[in-house]
């Protein structure tokens, strides 16, 4: 089994290195194919491992070698395949494999085709390390690794020039990449601090040691550790206020958005909370956990609200991702870790599908993303329409589809925990989710064919791509059906969470309510956007001028705020520090000493007039002064 662990882990690495070999040469289709195959190998291993774990119920733990060892600190490269990680592994490798295959088609015309695969596989490798590591430091490797790959991939089209924020809210791919990396680093610092707290209180960073030691730690330490780790999670999972990078990350190629910024990397924060559930589940840190849940709920609502008015196809999906991450945190914060994990998996499938579908649309529309310029695409892109429809239904949480099960469970949990405000918000958000998902679907695939006015000639994606997407579609539909099996499976590694009897009884009622809310959202969207002819959608100036619309459109002015109050002052202070403090104070004082000495020398050389009489005078001055001092000091004793 150990070998399988390594195969699952290193197949993406091999793939990445292989592709990197051709990184600077022109497109080689086989690079993509081989990379995809290696990814599939990884997926297969993961599935096998999952099956093994499922059957035996015992986690597999391997230690490859020692990494860092100093003082009392020992960090190995150790890998733990248990219920949590194997779930993640399977999801990650599955989505990755699909995305790899998809990319062969999507990146078809890109001259940096090979490089793309190298990055993509490297990302998968990092993600695998993240989920498989048996210690926090290993997790951090993956954590930073995915960050870097995300940086590379967001900035994949680095050659694009910077634009103003009005023209392009993300400015440029390279700008977005840097933003993502830096914001993530802010969170990573929190994570590091969490690691330090754990190390100095426990003496190790191994999960098992740390978790075993937790009950012996004081409440303040636990709280500090939990907060610090959660700050880390907030960055990676783009929780408010560190969320802005995620929408900007849409500057990357769409497969990247699908894989990284929807299905896998952004869920790393959720994964961390789930992984560290012994910590977050403790009585002492209930406050932190509740904060997590509240923040999750807030972000769910907050992101959904921005999606309501967004016109950019990918950004809408990005907001929905943000929103769904909020759901996951809500669940995790409320202690329903398995539900969070389940939603994470289900979300991965349908969100990846949604993004890939979006990618198809982009491909068809020559990278045009404004849904107001689309409409009626259903006719030319039936397959894509279908996939995106499925994904959107799943996202909206209609019954039978995956999203229904997982999201409904989260909403139920909120009710179950008695946090009715959260529950209400989550229900409301579910309705908004349905509305904006279908707004997007209707605007792009239904209604008038507005694209014609702009001279687009959309066409369907390659067949093999559509075929490759099918597993995701299947899972987007069916994943929820295995909820109970999944529960049973993960219960061996995760604290159980069951609804109370009361909740259980009214579960159907709650579910129904959610469905009703979601359906009304869809219907509203249909009425507003899907109809053709006279009732076709028209933009309403009045609405677009309203304060709410603008607020939402400008993302509550948060990016603007960051720019005005963080970025610009930082640049300004830096400049001042350099020109004023460093040059004019620190350096000038050093030079000032030198200059002072030089000046003193220059003025004291004036005593050297060359005139003998002056010299004699100096001599006399010296002797008389000495004599006077002698007389005075003798007088004084």
């Amino acid at each position, binding site marked *: 089994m150990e070998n399988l662990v390594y195969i699952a882990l290193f197949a993406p690495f091999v793939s990445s290195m292989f592709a990197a070999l051709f990184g600077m040469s022109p497109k080689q289709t086989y690079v993509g194919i081989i990379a995809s195959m290696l990814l599939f190998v990884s997926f297969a291993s993961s599935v096998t491992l999952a099956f093994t774990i499922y059957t035996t119920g015992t986690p597999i733990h391997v230690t490859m070698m020692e990494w860092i060892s100093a003082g009392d600190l020992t960090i190995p490269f150790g890998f733990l395949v248990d219920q949590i990680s194997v779930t993640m592994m399977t999801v990650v490798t599955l989505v990755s494999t699909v995305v790899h295959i998809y990319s062969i088609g999507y990146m078809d015309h890109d001259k940096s085709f090979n490089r793309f695969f190298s990055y993509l596989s490297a990302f998968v490798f990092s993600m695998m390390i993240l989920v498989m590591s048996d210690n926090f430091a290993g997790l951090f490797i993956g954590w930073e690794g995915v960050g870097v790959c995300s940086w590379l991939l967001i900035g994949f089209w680095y050659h694009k020039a910077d634009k103003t924020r009005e023209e392009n809210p993300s400015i440029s791919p390279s700008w977005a990449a840097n933003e993502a990396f830096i914001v993530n680093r802010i969170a990573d610092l929190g994570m590091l601090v969490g690691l330090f707290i754990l190390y100095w209180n426990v003496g190790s960073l191994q999960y098992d040691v740390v978790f075993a030691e937790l009950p012996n730690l004081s409440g303040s330490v636990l709280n500090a550790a939990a907060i610090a780790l959660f700050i880390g999670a907030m960055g990676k999972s783009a929780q408010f206020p560190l969320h802005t990078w995620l929408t900007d990350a849409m500057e990357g190629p769409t497969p990247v958005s699908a894989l990284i910024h929807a299905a896998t990397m952004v869920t790393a924060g959720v994964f961390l909370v789930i992984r560290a559930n012994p910590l977050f589940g403790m009585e002492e840190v209930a406050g932190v956990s509740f904060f997590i849940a509240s923040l999750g709920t807030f972000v769910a609502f907050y992101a959904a609200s921005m999606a309501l008015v967004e016109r950019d196809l990918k950004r809408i999906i990005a907001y929905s991702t943000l929103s769904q991450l909020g759901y996951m945190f809500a669940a995790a914060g409320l202690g329903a870790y398995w539900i969070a994990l389940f939603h994470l998996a289900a979300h991965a499938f349908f969100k990846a599908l949604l993004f890939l579908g979006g990618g198809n649309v982009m491909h068809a529309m020559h990278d045009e993303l404004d849904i107001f310029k689309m409409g009626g695409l259903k006719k030319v892109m039936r397959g894509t329409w279908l996939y995106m429809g499925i994904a959107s239904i799943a996202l909206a949480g209609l019954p039978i589809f995956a999203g229904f099960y997982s999201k409904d469970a989260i909403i139920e949990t909120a009710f179950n925990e008695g946090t009715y405000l959260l529950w209400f918000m989550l229900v409301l958000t579910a309705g908004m989710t349905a509305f904006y998902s279908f707004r997007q679907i209707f605007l792009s695939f239904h209604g008038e064919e507005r694209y014609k006015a702009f001279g687009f000639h959309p066409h369907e994606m390659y067949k093999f791509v559509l075929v490759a997407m099918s597993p995701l579609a299947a899972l987007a539909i069916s994943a929820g059906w295995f909820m109970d099996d999944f529960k049973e499976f993960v219960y061996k590694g995760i604290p159980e969470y069951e609804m109370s009897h009361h909740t259980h009884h009214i579960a159907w009622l709650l579910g129904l309510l959610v469905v009703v809310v979601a359906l009304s959202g869809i219907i509203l969207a249909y009425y507003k956007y899907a109809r053709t002819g006279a009732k076709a959608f028209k933009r309403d100036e009045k609405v677009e001028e309203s304060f709410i619309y603008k607020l939402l459109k400008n993302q509550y002015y948060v990016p603007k705020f960051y720019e005005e109050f963080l970025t610009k002052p930082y640049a300004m202070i830096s400049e001042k520090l350099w020109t004023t403090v460093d040059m004019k104070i620190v350096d000038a004082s050093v030079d000032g000493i030198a200059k002072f000495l030089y000046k003193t020398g220059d003025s004291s050389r004036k005593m050297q007039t060359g005139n003998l009489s002056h010299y004699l*005078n100096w001599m006399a*001055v010296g002797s*008389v002064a000495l*004599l006077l001092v002698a*007389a005075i000091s003798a007088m004084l004793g």
Partner: protein
Amino acid sequence: MYEIVAFYLFSVLTIGLFLVTVLSKNVLYAMTSLAAGMVLISGFFFILGADFLGVVQLVVYVGAIMALYSFAMMFFDATRDIKEKNTNPALVFILGGLSAFVLVLMFAAPIHSDAIVALYPMHDGIGNAQDVGMVLFTKYLIPFEVAALMLLVAMISGIILAGKKMDLSLTEDTSADDEIMTKKDEK
């Protein structure tokens, strides 16, 4: 009593003459007063019983040194008034005054001690010259010889410095070996 009179007389006169030496604009006056002052100083020596020293003072100073100065003065043609621009006479006199003040203060201290035993005492009833000779040619024979060396040095120095050979400086003579270099410089 005569000693007191002589002391004050000599003091006032020497001080006066030396002041002339120092302050006079005329070299001749200065030199003459210097010579006169030195003669009077030998007077001090005689009062103090240092007869031999007094004689030496007369012979060497007034005789030899002043003669040398006179010759030099003739050589330099310095009989006319010397124009000296003194930038800050105040400083000079303050310095002089202060040094006089401190030195006087110092000498006014009870320097004289009866406890001090003479190492080379003068002998009563023996002439000063004899006493001096005794010490000079035993204890101070070496300094005496070195003084001879010093005078030799002074003599050689005087001769070669004033000699004709100094008129043409080899140090600044670039005729022989610097032609090429001058040409190069010109380029």
